[in-house]
């Protein structure tokens, strides 16, 4: 089971990295989402894997999974939504403003000379 989770994290990371290195904003955003999954699952897995032992206190039950990573990941999921939304907005603004969704600056885009 551990191998399944570890390989899933690996696959998500690899796919995320590949897409983040693409040249258009949409795949980059998808790649970031995949990386978010990978990171969230990784953080969650830091509590180690437990099956059938939810952190809901019940009389007579002694074994629970680690609740702390879950709480941290829960907020991380919500925050990553906010982050994705902002990035999408920026990408959209860039595309609508320039009619181009490339993420790299064009090579001839020289920096502006500073004004004294």
């Amino acid at each position, binding site marked *: 089971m551990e191998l399944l989770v*570890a390989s899933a994290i690996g696959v998500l990371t690899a796919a995320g990295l590949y897409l983040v290195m693409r040249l258009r904003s949409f795949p980059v955003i998808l790649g970031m989402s995949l990386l978010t999954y990978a990171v*969230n699952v990784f953080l969650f897995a830091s509590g180690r894997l437990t099956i059938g032992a939810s952190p809901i206190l019940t009389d007579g039950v002694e074994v629970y999974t680690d*609740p702390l990573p879950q709480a941290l990941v829960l907020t991380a999921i919500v925050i990553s939504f906010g982050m994705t939304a902002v990035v999408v907005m920026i990408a959209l603004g860039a595309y609508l403003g320039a009619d181009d969704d490339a993420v790299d600056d064009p090579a001839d885009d020289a920096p502006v000379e500073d004004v004294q």
Partner: protein
Amino acid sequence: MSLFLIVALPFFGALLPGLMNQAGRKACAGITFTVSLAAFIGLLTNLPTVMAGEVVMARVDWVPSLGLNFTLMLDALGFFFALLILGIGLLIIAYGRSYLSRDDNMGEFFTYLLLFQGAMVGIVLSDNILLLLVFWELTSLSSFLLIGYWKHLPEGRQGARMALTVTGMGGLAMVGGMLILGQIAGSYDLSVILQNRELIQGSPLYLPALILILLGCFTKSAQFPFHFWLPHAMAAPTPVSAYLHSATMVKAGIFLMARMWPVLSGTPEWFVIVTTAGLVTMVLGAVIALFKHDLKALLAFSTVSHLGLITMLLGTGTAFGAMAAMFHILNHATFKAALFMSAGIVDHETHTRDIRRLGGLRHLMPITFTIATLAALSMAGIPFLNGFLSKEMMLEEAHHTVLFGSHWLVPVMATVGSLFSAAYCFRLIGHTFLGAKRDDYPAKPHDPPAGMWVPPAILVVLVVVIGVLPHLAEPFVKLVTAAVLGEAADVPKAYFKIWHGLVPALYMSIIAVVGGLVLMTVFKPLLKTWETTPRPEAKTIFEAIIAAAVSLARGLILTSHNGAFSRYGAVFAVTVVVAGAYAFLSGTVGETTRELQPVTPVALAGWAMLVAATLALVFQHRNRLLALILIGIAGLMVSVGFVFFSAPDLALTQFTVEVVTIILLLLALNFLPNRTPVESSQFRRMRDGVIAVLGGIATMAMSYHYLLRDALSTPISEFHLANSYKGGGGTNVVNVILVDFRGFDTYGEIIVLGIAALLIYALTETLLSGPVRARLLNRKPDQPRAGDMHPMMMVVLTRVIMPVVLMVGFYIFLRGHNEPGGGFIAGLIVSIAVIMQYMASGFAWTSARLRYPYHGVIGAGVLVAGLTGIGSWFVGRPFLTSYFEYVRIPPFHKFELATAAAFDLGVFLAVVGAVMLSLESFSRLARRAHVPDAEHPMDIDPSREQALAQTAADLKGGA
């Protein structure tokens, strides 16, 4: 008055002038004056204690772990400087009120001035050197604002930048020096450091600390070779020059040298560095000053020269030198501020500061003439004026100082400096006020209103009083000197008097004054020689250095940072993998402590789906809609995985977030192209693939190692499990952690979420108000639109489902404390319910029924959560302490009421507001894109069509 209040008053007062700007100039200046006066009186209430030789202390721990405490100390030295800062500040404010013209924004000016005043008072009262550094940097910043106050003048902007660069660099050096000093002494409190003279001077780090601290002092006090910024800072309005660049800020470096005198001085290093720098600055400043034609530039270089004089006195390291330095600080502050104000008056009345265009003003401006002449003569060192007294003491001290083994070097240089100093004073008087009346002044000069001449007049009265009756100032100066010397030396016995007999200092003084007069007679040929002699221009050198730094930085940045974000991603990934691999290979890995758990078929199926969806996404990512569906599958599988591994809360959150994220991306895709073109080369795709696979393998290896080993120490989770019910009153530990144990984190998080949503809203507003708007309006949808945009089935369904979903959300919210659920999840569920209304019935219909704007909902959420947290203050507990109680209202069962529920309500509201505001902003773009907006909830409405037909029939009938 408490020392805290004295420091805080100017800072808080700085808020007022801006507010009073509307109330008129008188009110604006009046309020500033009142604030300063209050601080001044507050300072004076401490006078008896200080005169009794005691030290007033005030202390609040700030960051004790860093040794940074808000400790203030008022001894005679601090009192002396604070008196100068606040006293002259009062005069400057009165003067500034008349000086500033109607076009100048007075509120802005006085706000900066008060900020500066507060920072200065902070420096001189700090007992903690880290706190002192904070105030030190604040003076640099506020003086930057003041020098550049006339933003329309290029000289003002350049001068401000130069001053900030030089003093800022010095400040950085000083940070290093102070940290070293604190490390040596083991404390950052001055009162401790000053007791450790032997320890500090014996340390091998003494010299680096000394050099770094002196760099800070020399840049601030414009000592050679950092003297050049001061004359350029003269582009500031004259009140600023009079205040910052003669009486206060430039004395900050000197203050610090005096403050550190007991521990830093007395060593050969201190003596050589400080005395030499002071001596060179003194002579150089005096020589340049003589040949300046701009009144303020002349005064600026003369200030440089006098600061050099004081520095040299401190450098000698003798008690008498320190006393002379303190006395000269007092005298210089009085006559130089008066001179600056007089120069300002001349400038104000004649519209020029060029000495070559002035002369003969004696008849036209008798009051100004009297003030300026007395002050200038004092500066020249004429008897019966205070400048004479301290200059005599300086010459006396110079007479005894042996530098580089020479008995002659210091006395001769000091005499030469005094000689030029006398010469430029005579030139100032002679060429501005004496001589024949001219008829080509740019304006018709006359004496200014009383508001402008009274402040310098008060200072000149002091000049004369101290000059004639020096014994009045003696006890105070000796008290200050005692504070400077600390336990390092005794206060000298020497008396302050005009006639000391025929001592060498008197002869040197006579040489200086007579020499100065002689120089004036040969001034014209001298000036010609000066102007034809080539000499290095400090400003050009400074600008060359800056240009070199800029081109170096630009070269570095442009080669490493070329705007290709995909390259950054690759570099980052490789770096992280290599660093991780190095750590992994060079470290040790413990034995596995956990058993591999058996794979179940369900898990395997889920894994297969996740991997398949992810891989398909990579290969099919060019088809964007398909990619979106595939990422949805991946997200869903992650949620299912959370359920499988005992994390129901996470699963619920991930699932609901997935829904809103996909809707969001769909909205975005509405505008973006549907396909990603093939752009990168085969090689590049291979390269990225290799990097990605490497990164994937690395993370996998790390996770795998991690999962098979237990934590080395007991996880703190045990505490949460044990106390969740007892302390937090909830059985859902995850929720209790969110709203109780780590409630502060959650509070910060909902604020971040709210800010993100507001940011999206702001970006949308910007887009819609800019040129993009026209493009959006003219945009042709690239896909055929559905004829039935608001299908009746969906409208009906979503409306029926709405109350049900709200009820589910409410239920999930309430059970959150004990069962999976809570504010986050409930917020997301309710958001989805509302989004469905938008989708089914259209934007206009839904927004028309919206009673509260989403901004308000976010705000309400943060407010509710915050107020819940603050509530615990009223029962004397820290922020966000939770409380719960079981109550029973018949006929219901016993149930729990917890403050955490109110906090969770805040979370709920913030999440709903943030999600909705983001999505609404996106859809507003879409809405403006294709103009017709369904006014009706349903496109097909038989009743409406009948009515239309009826109207048409009526019209036809009428025709």
